[in-house]
């Protein structure tokens, strides 16, 4: 006796979440009118996202501190809970109980609004992320455009935060952040264009489906333009969520803490949460676009998706453990003079990729890439380290 709702869905691990939701809906169907059922399914996926976001953020902070510890030959938090597993909860409680200081001459309303407004886009982006087969919260056919539009809103709350706290450091930090995010948004958007061109659609689900291949995986990263697009997208993603080596705004050594200097307690926790959720969603979109989202031979689809995103987040943490910070003008120069021309060229490569045959396309793309990279490096002399000679006096 399978309840009517479940009849069409097969019972394998892959579909476990989809069947779970269908089963709950079938339970609710007994005593809810039809139109409330539609509302109920929306509420269920909404609640799942609202819990998923913060939980991911909590355990991302722990993962980051553990990995960084291991890079630096130390353990990372291991006092609270077995391997420090309860550490995020301890941080959460600390954030709740910490006093929430509002500077005297701050603009109260805007100071309060900034953390709230920064979390909204961070959560909204979860809607279009395809967690698994048929597990996208809202299957928008303009998924990617929605993602880019919403992530462009995050500049506003950062301005609000930095301006409202009326403090020199946060003003400087706010200006820098806005400049950085605007200049890295454009290469990121252009880096997405090749994937859209190849999959003929903006919806994230069709992009993932267009990368399917029985055993020879057709992931976009295995094409010349895919590699370039992935690297540029990933760099812009790290810049977009202010993570090292692009973490200029919270440059501890210069501006104390950038735009959230004057925040403490729960408000600071919201800024912190927005940053980590942005990091997760950007990695998820990078995985969807170039690494074939939830495509993968044997394991269930959502496991593939979380594996790939987890891998990309580890690379972001690896960046944090290795690189010093960019300076403001290098940051801007890198985006405008290096990444932007590269993405425009990348779009040319994808167009080329469609018309010529496979092998010739590879040859031509590598040739063009080589020449253009060489010229770009020649043009940006400042980025190339000078050779230094050290005479030995006695």
């Amino acid at each position: 006796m399978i309840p009517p709702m479940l009849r069409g869905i097969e019972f394998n691990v892959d579909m476990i979440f989809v069947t779970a939701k269908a089963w709950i809906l079938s339970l609710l169907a007994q005593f809810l009118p039809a139109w409330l059922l539609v509302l109920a399914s929306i509420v269920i996926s909404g609640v799942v996202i609202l819990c998923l976001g913060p939980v991911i953020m909590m355990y991302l902070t722990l993962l980051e501190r553990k990995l960084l510890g291991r890079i630096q030959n130390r353990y990372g938090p291991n006092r609270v809970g077995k391997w420090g597993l309860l550490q995020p909860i301890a941080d959460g409680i600390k954030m709740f109980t910490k006093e929430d200081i509002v500077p005297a001459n701050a603009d109260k309303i805007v100071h309060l609004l900034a953390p709230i407004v920064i979390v909204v886009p961070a959560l909204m982006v979860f809607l279009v992320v395809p967690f698994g087969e048929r597990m996208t919260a809202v299957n928008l056919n303009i998924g990617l455009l929605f993602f880019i539009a919403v992530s462009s809103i995050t500049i506003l709350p950062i301005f609000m935060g930095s301006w409202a706290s009326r403090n020199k450091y946060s003003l400087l930090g706010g200006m820098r952040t806005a400049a950085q995010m605007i200049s890295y948004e454009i290469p990121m958007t252009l880096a997405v264009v090749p994937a859209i061109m190849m999959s003929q659609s903006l919806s994230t689900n069709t992009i993932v489906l267009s990368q399917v291949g029985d055993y020879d995986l057709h992931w976009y990263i295995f094409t010349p333009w895919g590699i370039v697009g992935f690297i540029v997208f990933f760099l812009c993603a790290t810049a977009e969520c202010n993570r090292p080596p692009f973490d200029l705004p919270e440059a501890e050594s210069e501006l104390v803490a950038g735009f959230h200097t004057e925040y403490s307690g729960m408000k600071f926790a919201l800024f912190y949460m927005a940053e980590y959720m942005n990091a997760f969603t950007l990695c998820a979109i990078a995985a969807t676009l170039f690494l074939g989202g939830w495509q993968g031979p044997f394991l269930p689809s959502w496991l593939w998706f979380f594996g790939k995103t987890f891998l990309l987040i580890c690379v972001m943490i690896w960046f944090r453990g290795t690189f010093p910070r960019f300076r403001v003008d290098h940051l801007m120069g890198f985006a405008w003079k290096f990444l932007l021309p590269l993405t425009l060229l990348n779009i040319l490569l994808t167009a080329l990729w469609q018309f010529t045959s496979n092998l010739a396309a590879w040859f031509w793309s590598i040739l063009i890439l080589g020449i253009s990279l060489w010229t770009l490096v020649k043009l940006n002399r400042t980025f190339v380290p000078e050779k230094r000679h050290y005479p030995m006096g006695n």
Partner: protein
Amino acid sequence: MPILEMAAKFGVYAVMGVILIFALGVVTLRNLFHCALCLAAALIGIASIYVVLQAEYLAGVQILLYVGAVVTLVIFAIMLTEHLAGKTVRQNNSQSPLAIMALLGFMALIGTVIVKTPWPVTPAALASKVSVMGLGKALMGAYVFPFEVISILLIAVLVGTVIIAKKDTPERS
């Protein structure tokens, strides 16, 4: 699901009310920075109306262009001009009677236009959802010439602003 339609209708009216409030805020608030934020909120409101009318593409573009770019530039302008953000702007001046007269005239004009035009909601219009693909083809197909002219115009504007901004910095330093 009649109740859902009715709820959606009320939802739209509520959002329109919120947009009106924010629009009023843009005009009446004393602190310039608050006005810019209310402008952003109003624009997001309009985008949510597009979503309710199932024009997601337009909503996405609205948020991306207006809120992401235009309001940010407005705030940049406020921030970069010295001491503008902090100062409160003086609101009322002595020309209020003249303003009310102009307002009434304008209301009359708009009223007649709304009443006169027929708002046919033919089922064909409802069904023909213009897909994003269609838009792209039209831009590249029939309307490619205006598309290129506009881009040239934008470049000219960009170069112009750089020259204007550049000119006054040498004197100051």
